């Protein structure tokens, strides 16, 4: 028979979101809390992020990933949160029954609240369908990061990186420091995907070329990668004939986007949002199904771990307090210029945050909040970019009396190039 456990809160995933929500649930009075982590230790992806840049918002200082994780791991010593590592959740039902396995057996949890904090995964070569051969030497940037920083292996000697997402930029620097030649970072967009600070600190400082409006159109090599074909692309990301050239390399790293990991959410039947690719959530990161929460990158890919922590603390608190929830007052959707808005539901505007991701870069941006065809509030941002979410405290928005659908639009002067 499986080990059967009744719980107040079960948290699935022990990365930054799971740790923050479990600790917050404890601090707000929940007692029978279980944190299920499939790896052998807590911390998740933070453990492989040995570069600094974490914690400026939460701690007001710059930490490495493992240091940031450590701040939370230490706190568990003062709680009775049950930490279960090497434990993989295989099923979640709409009635919040969880099935998990670990080397000790099969575990069945019946929980009052369940917090989903499974994080996200990287897009792969197959997903973006780059034609060519399938040799060794094609890695997602995050996998390469783990191999280098945790396992101590070098994926290759001569690397091309596709995608200017943050992990790709960080890996360009990390590999350069290991003596690897980083031939180029190739980006299909006309502008950078990652943070500007990473462009400066990882590419400019190490003289790694960035090729904007370029993509990889073929991969060569029978057993091991021996080169890639790159082409310039037009405004619709279509390769421009005649611009092809071959870059010799033995390795291709892909940093082409992250996808929230919602396979377990789907099993439970939680409604998912096409824009965020995570569950629809409210300001407490409660999903549309009562008692089920989704926080951190499983809800929407955030650009800073600090934001993950902040939203996850809200989820943990709400899960612990078990308060009856209000009806949804505002239904948020992204309009022109906005890629996504999270949370998508707002019940209470007293506290909580709103995150908006622009779908292109703008200068002198105006952010319009629109209800029933009328702009009810407008904000300004001197510069905004897809790589950096715009964040507002809910209480600082002048919400209309009447609830309903709210569209967020961004307008401004488009940024060309960097």
């Amino acid at each position, binding site marked *: *028979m*499986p080990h059967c456990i009744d719980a107040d809160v079960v948290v699935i995933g022990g990365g930054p979101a799971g740790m923050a929500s479990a600790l917050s649930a404890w601090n707000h009075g929940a007692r029978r809390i279980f944190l299920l982590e*499939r790896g052998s230790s807590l911390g998740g992806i933070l453990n492989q992020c040995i570069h600094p840049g974490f914690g400026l918002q939460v701690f007001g200082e710059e930490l490495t990933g493992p240091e940031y994780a450590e701040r939370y791991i230490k706190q568990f010593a003062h709680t009775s949160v049950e930490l279960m590592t*090497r434990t*993989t959740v*295989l099923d979640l039902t709409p009635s919040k029954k969880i*099935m998990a*396995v*670990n*080397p*000790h*057996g*099969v575990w069945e949890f019946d929980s009052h609240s369940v917090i989903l904090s499974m994080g996200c*995964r*990287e897009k*792969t*070569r*197959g*997903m973006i*369908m780059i*034609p*060519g*051969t*399938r*040799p*060794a030497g094609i890695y*997602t940037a*995050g*996998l390469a990061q*783990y*191999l*280098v920083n*945790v*396992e*101590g*292996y*070098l*994926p*290759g*000697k001569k690397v091309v990186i596709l995608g200017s997402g943050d992990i790709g930029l960080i890996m360009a620097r990390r590999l350069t420091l*290991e*003596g*690897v030649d980083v031939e180029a970072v190739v980006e299909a967009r006309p502008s950078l995907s990652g943070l500007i600070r990473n462009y400066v600190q990882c590419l400019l400082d190490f003289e790694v070329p960035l090729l904007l409006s370029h993509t990889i*159109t*073929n*991969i*060569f090599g*029978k*057993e*091991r990668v021996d080169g890639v074909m790159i082409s310039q692309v037009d405004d619709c990301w279509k390769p421009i004939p005649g611009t092809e050239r071959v870059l010799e390399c*033995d*390795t291709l790293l892909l940093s082409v986007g992250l996808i929230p990991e919602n*396979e377990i959410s*789907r099993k439970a039947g939680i409604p998912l949002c096409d824009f965020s690719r995570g569950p629809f959530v409210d300001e407490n990161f409660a999903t549309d199904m009562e008692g089920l929460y989704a926080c951190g990158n499983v809800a929407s890919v955030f650009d800073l771990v600090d934001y993950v922590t902040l939203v996850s603390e809200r989820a943990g608190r709400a899960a612990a307090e078990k308060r009856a929830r209000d009806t949804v007052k505002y239904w948020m959707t992204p309009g022109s210029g906005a890629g996504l808005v999270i949370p998508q539901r707002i019940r209470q505007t007293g506290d909580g945050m709103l995150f908006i991701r622009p779908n292109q870069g703008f200068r002198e941006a105006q952010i319009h909040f629109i209800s029933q065809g009328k702009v009810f509030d407008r904000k300004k941002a001197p510069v905004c970019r897809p790589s950096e979410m715009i964040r507002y405290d809910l209480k600082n928005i002048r919400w209309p009396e009447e609830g309903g659908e709210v569209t967020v639009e961004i307008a401004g002067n488009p940024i060309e190039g960097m």
Partner: protein
Amino acid sequence: MKTNYDLIVVGGGVVGCAIAWYLSHFELDILLLEKELDVCEGVSKANTGIIHSLSYLTPGMIKGDLHRRALLWFPRIEKELDFHPLVTGALTVALTDEEIEYLQSLKAIGGYEDAGILGPGEVKALEPALNDKVVAAYFDPNAAVVSPFRLTLAFAEGAALNGVDFQFESKVTGFISQRGKIEVLTEKRSFTSSFIVNTAGLSSNHLAQLSGDRVPKLQAYKGEYFLLDKECRFLTRRILYPVPTEISKGILIAPTPEGNILAGPNFELTDADDTGTTQSGLDEVRTGVRKLIPTFPFDQTIQIFAGIRPTLPERDFLIFSSQKHPGLIHLCGIESPGLTASPGIAEYVVDLLVQKGLSLKEKNHVVFRKAFPIFHECDWQKREELIAQDPDWGQIICRCEEVTLAEIKHALKMNPPAQTMDGLKRRVRVTAGRCQGSFCEMHLPSIIMDILGCDSHHLVKSGKKSYLFAGETKKVVNIHAALH
């Protein structure tokens, strides 16, 4: 090391392994030579994985005859190899009135009582995603799908259990006949035997030439595929064939036994070693697939790949005895439906060998293969039992396909063992899921090195030169020791 055998099979594809398995029922010393590090590395690894029913055989050709003979073998394969095709059924879809005539011919060829032609309403009720323009479809409930890797491995493991030796990295470079025996030369050493079966897939024609025989020119036709995430598993529950063209079965959509959806292939003349996908080829597949399912979710693709068909101008299998070396049999042009026909081909080849003087004495005892459990497919009670036996069953390494440490260790220890990352993937599906290894590939090196007893620079994806790592990172040095 043993170098003298009663029979040598050259080529570890599905046909070579089927022949080895079939012959392992008899008192014979058998060797299988394979140039790569694993079985199923060539033509057998990239195809639709369909066990085509009788409706789809080609009458009047050798491949049709062997297709028919092969289907009689599957009950025995299920019993002796514990290998079970997933019977899905198939719909051949007519989109115009003119195409209905072809459907009638399928019914006549198949002769199944339970097969028949359905109207558009019935077809859409079975597969709602199908094109609204469907006018009729031939429904044959007998078609099945398999994992081509797992079928090949089942034959290989069954053969190994019954005494067949496997030599990998053994590319055959020539044949020498002397005193009634044939010496098979490989890059490393040579072996002798009275009977040799050349079933080297894309290399068969070349080997036949090396042996001094005349063969038609090989034409390599590429077929490209899309593989979808398991989230799409209910897109179609049955194989969806179009009405075929003159040259191929056409671009079809099929569920896989593991729950993915496979779409393809196109049919494009290429070089024998060109397994790269192309933009134009993928676009051609997209167009073909949309004729069957206009809303096909290409955004759910987890992998694209290409396979090569070794075809001959006659478009039939060519199985013949060498003019130069008595006892040597060549198998050329084993294209579709080679996977389905593989046990029938084995039977036919053995008949030929007997005609050439191979004497068959049945073994008193044949070992039946028992398939290793697949954790993902077990119910909770079985999972509980497995973990109680060995905690490695509770350690999930691959989250997407729910592959446990116990399965990975078994794949590295079984015979023939996985020696490569692709070998592991094909045996237990680790790295085969939606993340394509992003979350588990890093955990595999230490497991492989531990069990195979090798160093990190010996880790490869598939071929000997497909190394995974170019070295190790800088190590922290003891500054004080370095200064003194």
